[in-house]
């Protein structure tokens, strides 16, 4: 770690002001992505602004047809929340297979989305559920929010405040873990709401989370695993590394998608 300035603001406005003023400032949420990078000296923010003291950024609430989760809500709270389990059980499941207990007790949904790791789990849920990311300035649709590997629509000085998920009629998440890191090697979130089916894939694509439209069309016909028979995403645009090449990843996406649909139907 390099030396840095540390602030712990007590209001969102104060946090935003500090962030605007700081040269090379970063907000700190659970620290589960930012701190390891700083320790390895791969990130070196001059100013760190801890959101831990800002009121009103945590909590889980059912608001009509939406589930709203505060940006500073820890993964473990989402995992164990009766409200989440009732509204979108697939989301509680997703968090239960994210990292390990230590990570889940620190990491937050806002941090995960802002980070947009191409293998992270939450982005798949946001994209498939058509979530809205609410910041201190505006509301951003998930379709616009994720813009590539570690890249989002967030502008300089913008802070995620909460995330709003429309409650689906059916949803399922299936993840094949990266052997070493346990992030998603291929993770597929399927969601059906009214006549609309959305399928989001994380871990596999070389530009981060994406929607698999062919699968969406197929499932729009009939929401059963069989609709996906013979369907596999193209290997173009698939990630390739020592753990999984493009062909294996494309295959895993197809298998995970079927299993996600099976899960969604099981409820």
């Amino acid at each position, binding site marked *: 770690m390099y030396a840095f300035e540390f602030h712990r603001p007590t209001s969102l406005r104060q946090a935003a002001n500090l962030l605007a003023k700081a040269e090379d400032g970063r907000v700190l949420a659970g620290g589960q992505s930012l701190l390891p990078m700083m320790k*390895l000296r791969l990130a070196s923010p001059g100013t760190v602004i801890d959101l831990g003291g800002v009121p009103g950024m945590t909590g889980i609430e059912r608001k009509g047809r939406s589930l709203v989760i505060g940006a500073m809500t820890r993964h473990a709270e989402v995992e164990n929340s009766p409200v989440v389990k009732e509204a979108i059980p697939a989301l509680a499941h997703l968090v239960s297979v994210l990292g390990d207990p230590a990570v889940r007790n620190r990491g937050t949904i806002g941090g995960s989305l802002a980070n947009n790791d191409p293998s992270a789990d939450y982005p798949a849920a946001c994209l498939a559920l058509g979530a809205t990311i609410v910041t201190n300035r505006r509301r951003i649709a998930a379709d616009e929010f994720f813009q590539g590997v570690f890249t989002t629509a967030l502008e300089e000085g913008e802070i995620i405040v909460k995330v709003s998920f429309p409650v689906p009629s059916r949803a399922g998440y299936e993840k094949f873990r990266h052997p070493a890191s346990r992030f998603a090697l291929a993770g597929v979130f399927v969601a059906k709401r009214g006549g609309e089916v959305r399928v989001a894939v994380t871990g596999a694509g070389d530009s981060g989370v994406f929607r698999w439209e062919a699968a969406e069309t197929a499932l729009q016909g009939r929401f059963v695993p069989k609709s996906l028979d013979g369907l596999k995403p193209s290997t173009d645009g698939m990630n390739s590394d020592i*753990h999984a090449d493009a062909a*294996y990843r494309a295959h895993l996406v197809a298998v995970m998608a079927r299993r996600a649909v099976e899960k969604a139907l099981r409820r």
Partner: protein
Amino acid sequence: MAVTSIGARVARKEDHRFITGKGQYVDDINRPGQAHAVFVRSPHAAATIKRIDISAARKMPGVVGVLTGEDLAADKIGGLICGWMIHSKDGSPMKAGAHPALAQGKVRYVGDHVAVVIAETLLQAKDAAEAVVVDYAVEKPVVDVASALAKGAPAVHAEAPDNRVFSWHLGDKAATDAAFARAKHVTSLDIVNNRLIPNAMEPRAAVGDYDSGNDAFTLYTTSQNPHVARLVLSAFIGVAPEHKLRVIAPDVGGGFGSKIFIYAEETVCVWAAKKVGRPVKWTSDRTEAFLSDAHGRDHVTKAELAMDENGRILALRASTKANLGAYLSTFASSVPTYLYAPLLSGQYDIPAIYAEVDGVYTHTAPVDAYRGAGRPEATFVVERLVEVAARQLGQDPAKFRARNYIRNFPHQTPVIMAYDAGDYHASLKKALELADYKGFARRKRESARRGKLRGIGFSSYIEACGIAPSAAVGSLGAGVGLWESAEVRVNPIGTVEVLTGSHSHGQGHETTFAQLVSDRLGIPIENVSIVHGDTDKVQMGMGTYGSRSGAVGMSAIAKALDKVIAKGRKVAAHVLEAAEGDIEFKDGKFTVAGTDRSAGFGDIALQAYIAHKFNGQELEPGLKEGAFYDPTNFTFPAGVHICELEVDPQTGDVRIEKWTAVDDFGVIINPLIVEGQVHGGIAQGVGQALHEGAVYDPVTGQLVTASYMDYRMPRAEDLPSFVVDTTVTPCPSNPLGIKGCGEAGAIAAPAAVVNALTDAVGHEDVPMPATPQALWRACQKAPRLMAAE
């Protein structure tokens, strides 16, 4: 308080300290005035250093010194050594290049040590290390044996122009070739034994301290053998003479071989302490550990097995290329030679064996002993060959093994080893029952109904522990003797301190060694303490590796205890006014035979010290005895491990459903600790088979698996609850009948897993580690045609 006997399940005495956070590891040690060292490491796999500019770094805040290879050379500090001489087939000695502790002109792997920066704080040292400017002329690296041996490959060291350190062989080539010529069936396999990174929980660390008043050094270090470290640092590297160098290896959090060796960082810390006039501390971070701890395995082998028409094994032939890395680490040359080829007979009666091994330099981290060291590689070769041969002959793999087992002991193999005792049929029989081998076909059908591929695999391993006797290993090229020492100090009130040359870094010696003393002297285990890991306390020792501490280290203690009892008997004769020949020692009491006159061990100890009852000119006061024990032979633990697993052909995911281990470790001192050793060994063996593999980029020579984000360790959830049992044939080669258990699991497991996987997928083309991707690919391949029964 009761006596604790041999064979009792005693909970580990040391665990209270560890569990309550009271362990004293090297990083817990801080010396007054201590400064911190950070190493500048090569970012390139192969390069010539054109210039090192330390001027900016020297001026950074808090810096107390920046040292390079030039400073080492100026102080005449020698290079690191390899302590085992191997001669090639043609009689020539191995071709070793120099191994400086800080680079001199060249770097040869990513992570090679270029300079050290010492500063008041760790952060200051890190900042200054970034300010050291090194001008490299980058060269093309070779990272695997095939490219290193290719024509025109760049030479890692000028001393070995074709990168062959040695071209060694063992066995009777003519007899083996003749047996192959008349064989009815030959099984051949191409085997890659994957490269592993040890990953002890505690990374390496060192604190070097120099006392200018006495011109004496102290090195606190994470070592499995502090005396060997002192010997090498003193006699070969030349830091200080032995009597001016104290090496302390306090609590050490795992070694698995990687802490046997004398490394650059530890050497530099102790030397630099005098140079900068400050104690110097270095603690490896995890990335450094991945880059610079000695790696393990990395063999490429062509292996063949010849059989007659009845499926009796006639001969075995193996040709191995062993990657030794960029420099020869402390025992690197012995691992793929004398710790490997002599084990190629396995548990089988094989009349002829011939093995050739090329040791090869590459631009990768040095490779040396890692849990099992050579024996896992040999077991993998033998057990894969045997399994595949049985399948090809259409025979049951258990029956095929049993048919070829050695039955009579002692048994001389064609490759050096004389097995002293064993009963291989007994462990196989027990293992087959515990694993419910008969029910396997039913379970396989049940798995198939769920779309899963079930497989079962055997590993009928043998290993050799307690490498010895010293004269024999000396004749094979070892630079040291492989005995062990012990000193038993009885205090006047009858409590006992045992000083041992063995070192405990997870093995539980403080419990098992005390158990032996309690049993022999008839005193409570609480009255015994075990002292180890300090060259100022224990005079000399050879340390802990190769599962030698039970068989060799405890035998030394037993020998010293015999001397204590003999002396005690002399004292008792005076105290009890009887002839020495009439004194019996039993259950902690000296008794005059046939009478009720007796004295407790503690009373006699006190009498030995007050010396009122005997003439001090005729019998020396005191009760303290030492012993050096040199075994007569290796020990030969052996057993059968059976792995049953399920593969998901859609994803390549594996679940180990059942693990059965039946081991013969000879006499067992503490079953609880033995089982723990077996469990850990299996976990590491499963790690090698399914998960772990060091990957270097073939073009850049970068270590791709340099963190836990890419290097997959085995996890608790990967493993079932093990079924662990034993059979016992006492070892006749040491007074306690102990064979050793520290490495068995890691030796046995990889072959059991791969045999099960190949059984599940129906063909032999499954690499290690069998990652999900590799297994998914294997599942795409058509199964072999089953041979007709």
